């Protein structure tokens, strides 16, 4: 037991050592990310000292970019694990190798989610009030308490699965099913649950008609399964260009079909929502009107949502055409879809519910520079983490990193 632990720590140590190796491109990338992270940290320190008044939020629009990013990222994290389904449920091995990369992405993204929530807190020093056992947790009543549980649980699950599988590859041993398969299946359900619970956070509020719609959770899942695998398509191509790690075109095409189907469903659900809002044309349409066409001379979100619509439409067309079998167009489609969904779910979903306010007042929300910097910092930190994870794992997967004594093998 003790020896096993020792071996494991040696393994982690050696993986860590890998992160300070690389060519100038790697160091440039890491330096740039660190710089942006530090800018974000600096902006956060300012916010910590002066309070949330440095943001564009108000009593009327009490959530802003942080929660918008949070919502988007929960989806990314959930979707990363969806690659697991074909591999383990349908025994289709095409995506086998990229599963670990997907789960690593989930870990990095969940960390970003937790950082975004923390950035949004008025009293981050009281975070321990949320820790079950020592704090006072309003579970199971509060949807936010559910979210805290499912997100942290998801983080732990994926960290375990990745850590275990990669270690087994390193040791050259066959992973014991009981140590990962049950967790993999739990993780699949858990992935759906994190995004559903996050949707329920909004849906459960009767006083916010814009959110109070049963279709929010399915919409969230559909958009997540577009953005998540889309991001992986891009990442995998970087990996195969920059490292010895082989990713087959077949795997990329498999991801393409996931993105394709999800994007179609996503746009369809969006259409259903819009029909309900605008055809009914009840008093509750005010938020949607504000979002798409502006309300009483206020047009703050109109450019955002039409940008998103244009990007979504372009991505959809590219994806359904055979054109996107060529990687160049597929990449373009993924970028368009990711940005489009980021806007649609963030600025297009979180903010309009606050405009007009519950008492009909229109106060617009414009994020401040400081807020953007904090968001940029968290994104950079997330990418930094993911890069480090990849840097640690890929040498193991390609067989370059083996226990001392074992001959470095070829790709397994």
């Amino acid at each position, binding site marked *: 037991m003790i020896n096993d632990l020792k071996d494991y720590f040696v393994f982690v140590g050696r993986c860590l*050592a890998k992160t*300070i*190796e690389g*060519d100038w491109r790697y*160091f440039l990338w890491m330096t740039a990310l*660190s710089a942006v992270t*530090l*800018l974000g*940290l*600096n902006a956060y*320190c*300012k916010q*910590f*000292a*002066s*309070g*949330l*008044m440095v943001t564009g939020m*108000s*009593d*009327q629009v*009490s*959530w802003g970019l942080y929660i918008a990013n949070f919502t988007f990222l929960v989806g990314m994290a959930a979707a990363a694990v969806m690659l697991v389904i074909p591999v383990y449920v349908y025994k289709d091995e095409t995506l086998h190798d990229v599963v670990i990369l997907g789960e690593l992405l989930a870990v990095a993204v969940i960390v970003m989610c937790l950082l975004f*929530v923390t950035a*949004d*807190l*008025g*009293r*981050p*020093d*009281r975070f321990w*009030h*949320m820790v079950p056992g020592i*704090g*006072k*947790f*309003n579970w199971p*009543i*509060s*949807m*936010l*308490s559910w979210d*805290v549980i499912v997100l942290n649980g998801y983080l732990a699950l994926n960290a375990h699965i990745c850590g275990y599988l990669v270690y087994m590859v390193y040791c050259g041993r066959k992973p014991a099913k009981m140590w990962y398969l049950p967790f993999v299946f739990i993780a699949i359900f858990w992935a759906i649950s994190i995004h559903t619970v996050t949707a329920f956070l909004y849906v459960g*509020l*009767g*006083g*916010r008609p814009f959110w109070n719609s049963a279709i929010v959770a399915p919409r969230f899942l559909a958009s997540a399964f577009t953005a998540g695998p889309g991001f992986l398509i891009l990442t995998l191509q970087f990996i195969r260009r920059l490292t010895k790690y082989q990713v087959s075109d077949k795997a990329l095409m498999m991801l393409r079909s996931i993105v394709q189907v999800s994007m179609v469903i996503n746009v369809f659900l969006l259409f259903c929502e819009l029909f309900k809002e605008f055809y009914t044309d009840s*008093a509750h349409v*005010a938020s949607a009107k504000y979002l798409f066409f502006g309300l009483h001379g206020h047009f703050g979100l109109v450019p955002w949502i039409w940008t998103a619509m244009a990007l979504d439409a372009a991505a959809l067309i590219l994806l359904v055409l055979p054109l996107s079998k060529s990687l160049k167009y597929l990449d373009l489609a993924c970028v368009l879809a990711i940005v489009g969904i980021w806007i649609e779910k963030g600025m297009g979903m979180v903010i309009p*519910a*606050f405009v*007009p*306010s*519950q*008492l*009909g*007042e229109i106060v617009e929300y414009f994020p401040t520079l400081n807020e953007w910097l904090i968001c940029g910092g968290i994104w950079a930190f997330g990418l930094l983490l993911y890069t480090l994870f990849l840097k640690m794992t890929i040498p193991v997967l390609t067989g*370059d990193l083996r226990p*001392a004594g074992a001959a*470095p093998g070829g790709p397994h």
Partner: protein
Amino acid sequence: MNDEERELDGGSGGMTRAAFLAGAATSAVAATAAALAPLKDVTDLPSLEEFLQQHYKELTPEDKAAILERISKQVEKDYGVRPNLTDQPPIPGVEFGYALNIGRCIGCRKCVYACVKENNQSRDPQLQYIRVLKMRKGSIDVETSDHHYEGQVPEEGFYYMPVQCHQCRKAPCVKACPVKATWQEPDGVVVVDYNWCIGCRYCMAACPYWARRFNFAQPEIPAGELNPDMGYLSNRPRPKGVVEKCTFCLHRTRNGKYPACAEVCPTGSRKFGNLLDPESEVSQIIKNKRVYVLKEEVGTLPRFYYYFDL
């Protein structure tokens, strides 16, 4: 092991890399220190006692006494007055209710300012619990209301509808709070423990009446304007980063007084009393007048009623 690493490194010598990494580490430390610099402006870090303070409902009477003393001292230091800070318990057999005569209110906003004064709300940034809506006659749709009307009141063709916390029986804000920092007292008042709230603002998203306010900055009250009669769960000075709201002036009403807004209203539009006492003024109004609640469809069962004479 070193040999192997150097091999994989593909040529760039070990020494150069070590020097490079050392340089990188030094600049990283310097840059991080610079990034953290704004923290030196932090003036309101909680003391250890404050940091470790338990949830209101876990406190023993001794704990409470110590906390009240600590807060009193702090107020004395900050504002130069020794406050009369208490934690008055709810009165058994009392459930507070409010009735507002929508036909009489003239929209003068005296209640708004009396409330700010009574409850030690921040003056800068200005924070108010009561919002008076100027409504066109013939409509109860708040979306056509004017929040920022000025000039002579009352204006022909309009009526005025003040809105504040409705102390809902089924309060969505209480359900939302992840840490039970806001709850309903036995007398129906929904309160916030300013020492427990983490500032997530989920309750603000949940409230259908826009009744909750957030301290985006350190609240500022000129020393001379502080109201020294304070309740722990109501009008004691708040820290930044927490949510607050109307408490029906519980430090007054639990001592048999009227809320400040009811007392100041020049038209007598505001009626306050015990819903459990069938003879009380509010109970009589609910029984005999035309009464409605705002946004009945959201099912919050408010304890705040609007009524007409007639």
